[in-house]
């Protein structure tokens, strides 16, 4: 199968949007796929809206056009309103929200109360990884998402060899998201 996938990761500065983007991009690299991302750096990282475009496969532009992404990982409820328009009809959106969300109607939306889960596992800053875990549980290794939990785990293992306590914390957060 020729992989051609486009994913938007969106949230606010400080949530770790860039970190999740980087994990997914490294996973694509590890699987031998061409990868391109576009990231928000600079002033917006101070709590402003932050959005990453991730493109896996044969692309030359680093940006995703509206109505063409396969999925959206939304680390804030408002990220869906803001960046839902990037997703193609029938695409997926996983949204960090304590309330179930239904709009836009032509997307397959899953709401995850990642804040509560983060506080339950005692790591308030782990919303990004919980959300990544939730996406991996639902769309892993399919036409919707090119990688699996094992791929992400392998990336983490490779990147955090010298930081066992960090690795353990990150793994726990992704697992928590994966299991719900």
């Amino acid at each position, binding site marked *: 199968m020729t992989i051609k996938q486009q994913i938007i990761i969106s949230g606010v500065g400080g949530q770790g949007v860039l970190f999740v983007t980087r994990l997914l991009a490294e996973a694509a690299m590890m699987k031998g796929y061409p990868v*391109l991302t576009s990231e928000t750096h600079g002033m917006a990282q*101070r709590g402003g809206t932050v959005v990453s475009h991730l493109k896996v496969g044969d692309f030359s532009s680093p940006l*995703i056009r509206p109505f063409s992404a396969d999925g959206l990982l939304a680390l804030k409820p408002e990220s869906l309103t803001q960046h839902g328009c990037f997703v193609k009809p029938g695409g997926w959106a996983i949204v960090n929200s304590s309330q179930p969300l239904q709009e836009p109607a032509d997307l397959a939306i899953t709401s995850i109360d990642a804040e509560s889960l983060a506080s339950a596992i005692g790591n308030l800053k782990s919303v990004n990884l919980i959300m990544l875990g939730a996406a991996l549980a639902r769309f892993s290794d399919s036409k919707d998402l090119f990688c699996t939990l094992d791929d992400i785990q392998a990336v983490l293992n490779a990147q955090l060899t010298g930081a066992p306590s960090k690795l353990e914390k990150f793994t726990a957060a992704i697992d928590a998201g994966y299991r719900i």
Partner: protein
Amino acid sequence: MNNRMLMLGNQAISRGLIENGCALATSYPGTPASEILPSLVEWQQAENTRLHAQWAINEKVAFEIAYTAGIAGLRSMVSMKQVGLNVASDPLMSAAYMGTVGGFLIICADDPGPHSSQTEQDSRMMAMMAKIPVLDPDSPVQAKDMIAMGYALSEAFEIPVMIRPTTRVCHARQDVAVSPVVPDDRKPAFEKNPARWAATPKFRFRLHQSLEQKLSDIARYAPTAPIRCNPDAAGTRAIVVSGVAAAHTRDVLKDLGLWDRMPLYQVLQPFPLHREFIDHLETAYSQILVIEESTGVIEMQIADRHKVRGKASGTVPSVGEILPETIEAIVAEFTGTPLSRPMLPASPPGRRPTLCAGCPHRASFFAIKKAAPRGIYTSDIGCYTLGLNLGAVDTFICMGAAISQAAGFYQAFRSEPKRPDIVATLGDSTFFHAGIPALIDAVVQNVRFVLVILDNRTTAMTGNQPTPSSGRGIDGEPTITVEIEKLVQGCGIGFCKTGDPYDVPQFISLVKSAVAYSRETGPAVIISRRPCLLDRSRAETRHPFIRVRVAQEDCDACHYCIQHFECPALITDGKDKPVRIDPAGCTGCGVCVHVCPKKAIKILGTGQ
């Protein structure tokens, strides 16, 4: 080493530098160029090559250091953001005339959008004005390739070369091929030649003549000539692209099924545009669509204006980033291709950035507003520009202007019966960069204002690069520490006091005493010293964590703290709901205790 790596555009650029024998590199941080120099140092450490890399006090100084290494025969580079080149434009104009011996690259990152800049200026216009060639990469991979291309071009014609990546190249990540580093053992050599390196006007005239000859030859230099992307496509119309617009257009043509039908040319060197290419376009096509960011640099070099569709014809926007969906619409229109796409709903405004929870700048701004409530607040470039949200920043222009604008306001209101208090804010790095001459000027003219130097001991906005007062260099090596107090006193300031903005009552009275001094006597300076919370290298200077809570029975939901202090850790569930502390955000600075007019924010204790 794995032969492919995931790299940020800026990392790919620095990989190109290390693979091509760059021996001296300087920069001043600025988004989107900030990561070039630090990642170069990382490559250098991994490869153990000989290289001097340093942050300079500003872009002009950075430029002059790197350029002179080129005169001494070494390969060198200076990197900066587009507005940084304004600061370095003085040496740029002369460097073009005198040229270089070793390859000298000016890597100047533009920010169409703008995402994190004051302007959308097109640095390729600066290259045109200086009369030096400029290369325009479309991706991290091409940015890396253009380093080799740029050094070869620079040495072939003894001319500085500009590489102009944009935000979408600098902050894209891509899998990039890694090549081995070939050790460069060239030795510095300086051949004295006053007619060139110390050229007086008469000699400058000759240098200008030879520069024109170089440009004319570079417009025929084959390695940087435009690329025909789809040689099989034929027709009477063509599209010409450069930079990231080239990357977008390739995808768009394929998606619209036009790849085999619409001739596409990618310009690698927008200035000087190759002569033969201009002639070919004008002979072969009746209409030429040019898509480039941000100004029409390529289109203005195509002599037959009637054939060109671009900025001047209103076909391609002159303002803002050219997004792939915009290109899709332009190409569809140009080729008469029907485009069925749902209307894009109006995008809701995004969340505006704000100072971090616990940021010492927020405490400083709160104190300034208390001490000079009806003042004019001039400010500057840095995180503290976000004091805007707090109503504590009325103006900012460019690096260092807080002080000169304070002087301008003072002189404007000088003869009025009631002069406003004027409080200027700027950061430590910005003070070093461009504040010192302005402060000396204010002393000489006895400008009655207060300058608060927000000394967080780092260049925070761009990722915590060191300043001259940090006492460390780019890879953590110890350096001489320049004391801001001594500098301020050396400028001739009579009132210079240092305070901790976290100590709110004391700091407010300090600012009040400075305001009083400025009304009666002359310029006053306060150094507000508290390290940036994001600067991990200074963890040892952390303030003890003060646990606070909002007594729900005392909070009457006036939301004064949210509106006037805007700490992201102060949250509420609605308009009439009391305020709470967000435990995920609170950094334990304890400043908000002094902010609540109802005294509803209480200290619970110290320690997390």
